């Protein structure tokens, strides 16, 4: 199994061989298991600590957008702030409502977190450096992120609170609606690279797919912001103002797990977007691949944060209309254009030369801009034009006495 791979920083087979070397021969299933557990342990810890640091990063950057400082009291740049947050969350009382279904109530945050964490298993981190190599990595990602939906329904239902169930159902409606454009945008990537495996997609990106299919990138980015229920699509959480969000009745560490998963989502989204559209670990040779990976993930995460700081919330019916009318149509358009272009530009060996890629990219950029403008007008942006103000005849400030 491990014969054909070599090199790579984080590679299952390297670690397996380390364990295999000091265990007796017939116990190699134990070496397998220990390698798997240690890699999983390392990966989960790295991601969770990265999330904790990311929470601090988000608070500070949002604060700088708002012309104020963020948390900066403990440690240089407030580096130890996540520890303070953790202590606060752990020491809170863990309340449960009486009519709650205890098993479902306890399971919901765990499923939410596991679904988000499990995505990193298939991401290629560097050349030949990955945790697991799946032929259908993309399909796995789309499927695992759908498990979030189940977790939200469980959380909303298990409280026994009518309003949080309503909040959960609205959230689920939004999440399911946005999975379709997300999947269709990924179809464009699969068409171009010819394989569903993530390392194959990274290999196929001589020119990053951002430049070649910008429409697919935009659709995927917007759909994944909605999947994470982040601004500007966070109507279901901000509904805690009026109704109840699905996590109202949670407190203590269970709420902490929900928050952890919610803040892990932008990191995971950044990682997936990097792999699919930005070229993963590819980059010029003067930096190792893992570092390029980190830089790209960082920039995607920063853009997500920037969007959160700038835009107000969209109303719920407008969110649904946007997904079913605008994004779906644009996603179909993207696929059709890509199929036509691949037919034209593909040579007999089945690959596309760099010059053709650049030409495809140029055409696709023009198509993107034109279709977005057209779609905006078709969906009624012209209704937003405002008429000139005319003073009403009912009042006359300058009337003088007769």
């Amino acid at each position: 199994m491990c014969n054909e791979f070599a090199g790579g920083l984080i590679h299952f087979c390297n670690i397996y061989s380390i364990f295999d070397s000091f265990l007796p021969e017939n116990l190699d299933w134990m070496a397998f298991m220990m390698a798997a557990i240690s890699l999983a342990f390392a990966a989960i810890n790295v991601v969770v600590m990265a999330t904790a640091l990311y929470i601090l990063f988000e608070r500070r950057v949002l604060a700088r957008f708002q012309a104020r400082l963020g948390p900066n009291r403990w440690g240089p740049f407030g580096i130890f702030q996540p520890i303070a947050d953790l202590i606060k969350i752990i020491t809170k009382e863990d309340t449960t409502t009486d009519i709650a279904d205890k098993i479902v109530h306890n399971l919901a945050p765990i499923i939410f977190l596991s679904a988000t964490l499990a995505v990193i298993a298939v991401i290629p981190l560097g050349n030949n450096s990955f945790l697991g190599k799946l032929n259908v990595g993309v399909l796995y990602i789309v499927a695992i992120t759908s498990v979030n939906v189940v977790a939200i329904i469980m959380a909303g239902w298990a409280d026994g609170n009518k309003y949080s169930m309503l909040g959960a159902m609205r959230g689920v409606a939004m999440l399911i609606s946005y999975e379709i454009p997300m999947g269709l945008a990924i179809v464009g990537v699969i068409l171009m690279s010819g394989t569903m495996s993530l390392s194959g997609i990274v290999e196929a990106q001589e020119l990053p797919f951002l430049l070649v299919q910008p429409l697919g990138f935009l659709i995927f980015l917007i759909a994944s912001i909605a999947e994470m229920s982040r601004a500007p699509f966070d109507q279901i959480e901000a509904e805690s103002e009026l109704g109840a969000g699905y996590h109202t009745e949670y407190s203590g560490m269970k709420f902490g797990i929900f928050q952890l998963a919610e803040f892990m989502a932008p990191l995971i989204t950044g990682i997936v977007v990097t792999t699919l559209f930005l070229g993963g670990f590819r980059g010029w040779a003067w930096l190792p691949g893992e570092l390029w990976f980190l830089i790209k993930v960082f920039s995607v995460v920063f853009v997500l944060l920037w969007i959160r700081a700038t835009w107000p919330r969209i109303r719920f019916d407008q969110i649904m209309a946007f997904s079913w009318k605008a994004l779906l149509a644009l996603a179909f358009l993207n696929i059709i254009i890509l199929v036509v272009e691949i037919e034209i530009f593909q040579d007999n060996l089945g690959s596309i030369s760099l010059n053709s890629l650049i030409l495809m990219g140029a055409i696709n950029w023009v198509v993107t801009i034109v279709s977005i403008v057209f779609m905006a007008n078709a969906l009624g942006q012209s209704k937003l034009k405002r008429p000139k103000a005319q003073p009403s005849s009912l009042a006359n400030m300058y009337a003088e006495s007769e």
Partner: protein
Amino acid sequence: MTRVVDTIKVVELLEAEISGSILEHGQNELFVDPNKIFEIAALLKDHETLELGYLTSITAVDYIEYFQIVYHLLSMKFNRSLILKTNLYNRQNPSIQSLTRVWKGAELQEREIWDLFGIKFNEHPNMKRVLLWEGFQGHPLRKDFLGQEEQKI
């Protein structure tokens, strides 16, 4: 500059339509009969030379022998104002017709007067206390309200 309407003309107009409505008149204000206040208000609002369609404020004042209700009216079309005053002599259960159907802006202000003075407005759509809670005893802005006992919400 908002001037006052010509009160002499208004008195003639009102007496012609609704006799016995004006009790006295000054340069800026008219003292009217409280029983005819609804017809007077409707006439003042709809008459085409007056068009006093904007109710600036309704106030009540507690002169110990009587309550006086003061209406400040405004005509935005002609930029003219007028003050109407009526006296209510019944101190135990004062009441007067509500003008909500003439000017909708009277709704909340009349509720406030009921709340703080105890003057009931007949045919008001929602005659409940607005600033104090239901169950408060007494009407604070009356001059004989001492407010010594503590009231629990």
